[in-house]
């Protein structure tokens, strides 16, 4: 089932730095909740292993993360899809937009998520909350990561 979410974060870095971080596989790996592996297959495609944990449910997804719709250094789309075996599959993506602000950069996103198979069949009541939580966590992690990098750099 498909869900849509949106949000925004203030990043204490320049747009260029934020953009670079958005395209850094190492940063992404640290920010994607439950990401165990993220390897570059090409400039725009990464192979990923993500463990999603929601309460008693713990499912491992193998799949790809794709970066597309580049408009450097303003916006791109990050999307992922993973096969969770018996659990089903999950797909998600976010359109991410960076605009300069007084304190650095504003990151705004609109995200959508979709699950299928057993997770969709049984996890109906938890889907919305979980998708929102994962999206929030990713962008919060990202905001923290770039902030940390800045303070380390300074």
């Amino acid at each position, binding site marked *: 089932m498909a869900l849509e979410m949106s949000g925004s974060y203030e990043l204490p870095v320049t747009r260029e730095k934020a953009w670079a971080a958005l395209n850094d596989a190492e940063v992404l790996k640290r920010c994607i909740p439950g990401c165990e592996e993220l390897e570059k297959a090409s400039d725009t495609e990464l192979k990923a292993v993500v463990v999603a944990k929601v309460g*008693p449910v713990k499912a491992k997804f193998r799949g790809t993360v794709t970066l597309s719709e580049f408009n450097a250094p303003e916006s791109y789309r990050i999307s992922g899809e993973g096969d969770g075996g018996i*659990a089903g599959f999950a797909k998600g993506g976010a359109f991410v937009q960076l605009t300069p602000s007084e304190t650095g950069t504003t990151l705004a996103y609109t995200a959508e998520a979709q699950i299928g198979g057993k997770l969709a069949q049984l996890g109906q009541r938890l889907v919305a909350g979980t998708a929102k939580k994962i999206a929030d966590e990713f962008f919060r992690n990202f905001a923290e990561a770039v902030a940390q990098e800045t303070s380390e750099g300074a």
Partner: protein
Amino acid sequence: MYAFDYQRPAAIEAAVALLRAVDEPKVLAGGQTLLPTLKQRLAQPGTLVDLAGIPGLAAIERRGEGLLIGAMARHAQVAASPLVRSVIPALAELAGMIGDPAVRNRGTLGGSIANNDPTADYPAACLGLGASIVTTARTLPADDFFTGLFETALAEDELVVAVEFAAPARAGYAKFRNPASRYAMAGVFVAEGAEGFRVAVTGAGQGGVFRWTEAEAALAADFRPEALDNLSLDSADVMADLHGSADYRAHLVKVMAKRAVTVALR
């Protein structure tokens, strides 16, 4: 189910030691959420650490003016306990509304709050009564224990031992059941305690159980259902699904809050 090892330690220290020693441990208390999940193969723990063999964990005792209820106390046991019914009747009533009779005979207080399902009942009681959660490592207030959707402050090697409830001056719980699953679509626990008025809401928040502070303020001024008439819960962070929109759930929270106040005033 995927295969797993099973351990039933005889002491709480041994249980904690197992959590540290084994690969991918999972704590088994009542199992009423965990086992259905395992049956669907939606988790693959290495070892189940069953707490049922630890003596004393199911005790229900008088603690000062309040109660100390062991983590392994079953819902049916709490619901039927003369002590709970006399000291905090609303807590006994809440326990008697969880799941169905057979589920209540297995499900436990500790299991419920450690899982912190956003639609579970006990988190509302703990938060509403300002309970203290006693773990193997520390004692912490419910406000700090429940940290988000299915998340608590518990460390990987930390277990809930008991929950300490202060006796409220008055309290009530009202619940609107999901028509299919019987979990809370809106469950509101209202209490007047030594430190003031609390309104804890389960079943509705996207991030799990939460306190409705506007309602607390309104009830502090006037502890009657009518005091909530002009309030409305912001539906922005309220769950929406097939069974009800965020607006509907937000509205149900208010209706259940009023009903809980009515119960408290009985």
